[in-house]
C-alpha cells in the first residue's frame, strides 16, 4: 500500500489525493454543523426583522424594537410563563423521582429489576403521539378537566425515564471504595450519603435536570393532547404559525437559546472544576 511508505517516511508530504481524502471528513463535518445551525441562524436573524404586516417571511429591515415589544405582548408572554412553570415543576419532581430510582437500581439487589427496566425503557421507545393519546384516553374516561396539572403530570411521566438513565450512568461511573472508606472511618449510612455519595453524583443529577427541563419546555406533541384550555409556548407558536409567526417569537426563541447556551457552558466549567475537587476528595479519603 502507498500508505505504508508514507508512514515510514513521515517528513515527506503525502500525495495530493491523500491530503484531499484526509480533508474530506472534517470538511463534511463542518458542513453538517452549518446545516444544524442554519435554521437557528435564520431564527436569530429574523428576530431583528422589521416586517410590514403580519408575515415575518422576507427580510424588510433591521430593528431591535422586537426585543422591547415582546414584553408588552401578554398573548406571547403568558404561554411562556405557563411553559416555565410546567418545565420547572416537572423538572423538580421528575429529577427527585428519577434519581431515587437510579440510586435503587445501582445500589441494591432486589426482585423485579427486569420488569422495572421495562417500565423505564418502554416509555422512551414509545412514539410521543401514543403517550399523549393514551393519557388523553385516561382523562376523558375518568372525566378529568385538562389543564396545567395534567400537562405537568404528563411531563413528569416522560422525564422520569430520561433522568433515571442519566443519573444511573453517573452512579455507575464512580468508585464505590470512597463510600466504603467513609463507612470504615465510622460515618453512618446517611452521613456517607450526604458527605460523599451526593456530592459525587450531583453533576449527574444536574445534567439530568437540565435534560428534563429542555425536553419539557420544548414539548409540543404530548402537551397538545393533555392541555385543555391551557396554552404553553410551543402550543402558542404552533397556533400562530397558521397565520404567520410574529418576530417576537424569534426573540423569545433567541433568548432561550442564549440562556441555555450560557447554562451549559457554566455547567461544563463547573463540572471541570468539580473534577479537580473530586480528585482532592479522593486523595483526602485515601489519606
Amino acid at each position: 500500500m502507498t500508505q505504508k511508505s508514507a508512514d515510514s517516511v513521515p517528513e515527506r508530504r503525502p500525495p495530493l489525493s491523500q491530503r484531499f481524502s484526509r480533508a474530506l471528513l472534517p470538511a463534511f463535518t463542518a458542513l453538517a454543523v452549518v446545516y444544524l445551525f442554519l435554521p437557528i441562524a435564520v431564527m436569530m436573524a429574523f428576530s431583528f426583522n422589521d416586517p410590514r404586516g403580519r408575515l415575518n417571511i422576507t427580510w424588510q429591515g433591521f430593528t431591535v424594537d422586537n426585543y422591547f415589544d415582546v414584553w408588552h405582548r401578554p398573548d406571547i408572554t403568558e404561554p411562556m410563563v405557563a411553559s416555565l412553570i410546567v418545565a420547572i415543576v416537572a423538572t423538580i419532581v421528575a429529577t427527585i423521582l428519577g434519581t431515587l430510582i437510579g440510586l435503587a437500581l445501582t445500589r441494591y439487589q432486589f426482585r423485579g429489576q427486569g420488569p422495572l427496566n421495562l417500565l423505564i425503557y418502554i416509555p422512551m421507545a414509545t412514539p410521543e403521539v401514543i403517550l399523549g393519546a393514551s393519557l388523553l384516553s385516561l382523562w376523558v374516561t375518568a372525566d378529568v378537566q385538562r389543564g396545567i396539572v395534567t400537562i405537568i403530570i404528563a411531563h413528569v411521566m416522560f422525564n422520569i425515564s430520561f433522568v433515571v438513565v442519566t443519573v444511573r450512568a453517573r452512579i455507575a461511573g464512580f468508585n464505590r471504595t470512597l463510600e466504603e472508606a467513609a463507612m470504615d472511618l465510622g460515618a453512618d449510612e446517611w452521613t456517607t450519603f450526604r458527605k460523599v455519595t451526593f456530592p459525587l453524583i450531583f453533576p449527574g443529577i444536574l445534567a439530568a435536570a437540565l435534560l428534563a427541563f429542555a425536553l419539557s419546555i420544548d414539548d409540543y406533541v404530548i402537551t397538545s393532547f393533555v392541555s385543555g384550555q391551557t396554552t404553553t409556548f410551543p402550543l402558542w407558536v404552533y397556533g400562530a404559525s397558521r397565520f404567520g409567526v410574529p418576530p417576537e417569537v424569534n426573540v423569545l426563541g433567541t433568548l432561550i437559546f442564549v440562556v441555555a447556551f450560557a447554562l451549559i457552558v457554566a455547567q461544563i466549567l463547573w463540572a471541570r472544576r468539580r473534577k479537580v475537587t473530586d480528585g482532592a476528595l479522593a486523595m483526602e479519603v485515601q489519606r
Partner: protein
Amino acid sequence: MRRRLRGLVPYLFLVPGGLWLIAFFVVPMLVMASVSLQEGSLGTGYRMTWNFGIYPEVIADAWTQLSRSIVYALIVTIATLLIGFPMAYTIAFRGGRFKNILLLLVILPFFTAFIIRTLSWKLILADNGFVLGTLKDLGLLAPTTHVLASPLAVIGGLTYNFLPFMVLPLYVALEKIDPHLMEAATDLYASRRHAFLRVTLPLAMPGVFAGSLLVFIPTVGDFINADILGSRDTTMIGNVIQRLFLATNAYPEASALGFVLMAAVLVLVAIYARVVGARELTV
C-alpha cells in the same frame, strides 16, 4: 428488625417514581386499549362491545398514511445514518481537543424549540424565500420550482430534526474503539476500506442499532414536520391519530390506530434486532 427495614429501602426509593409510571403510562395504555374496543360517541357515551372489527377497519382507512410514515421513517433513518456516521467518525477519531466542543455543537440545536426550528425551515424553503427566490432570480431554478409541501421538504425536515439522535449513539460506540485495532488490521495488510468494513463497522454496530431506533421511532409517529412542511399528500399516521383524537373526537378509532402504530413499531424493531443481531454474530 433493623435489617428487615433496610431491605425495604430500595422499594421505598422505587415506589414514588414507579407508581407514577404505572399510573400515567401503563394505566393509560390499558385505558386506550379498552377505549379502542368500545362503541358510541362523545354525546351518547361509550359502551364496551369488544369491537375487534375496528382494527382491520382503521388499518384499511389509514393504510396510505401508515405505509407512507414507515417509508418516510426508513428514508430518514438511512439519511441520518449517511450524514451522521461520517460526523461521528470525525468527532471520535479526528476531533482531538475539539471533541467536546464538536459534541456540544451537535446538541445545541435542541435548545431552540422543535417547532421554531421547523418553522425556520419553512422560511428557508419558501417558494420566494431567500434561498429559492435568489436561485430563481439568478435563473438557476425554474420560477415554478417549489420544495415546500412536497415529500422532500417533510423528509428533509425530519432528517434535520432527528440527526443529533443518530450522531450521539454513533459517537459513543465509535469512541470506545481502540484505534490500535485499525492499525493492527492495516499492519496485517488489510486495505483501509477492508479494515473499515471488517473492523470499525462491526464494532460500531451497537451505535448504528441504537441510533436507528432513536431516529426511527420518533420519526414514524411525528406529525409536526408533515403539518408545517407538507401538504395533504404527505400526511403521516401521527397526523391522522392527532386529528381523530383532537378534531373529530373519534376516540375508539384514534385509540385503535394508536395501537396499530405501536404494534407496527414493535414488529419492525423486533425484525431489525433479529437481522442486526444475527449479522453481529456471524461477522
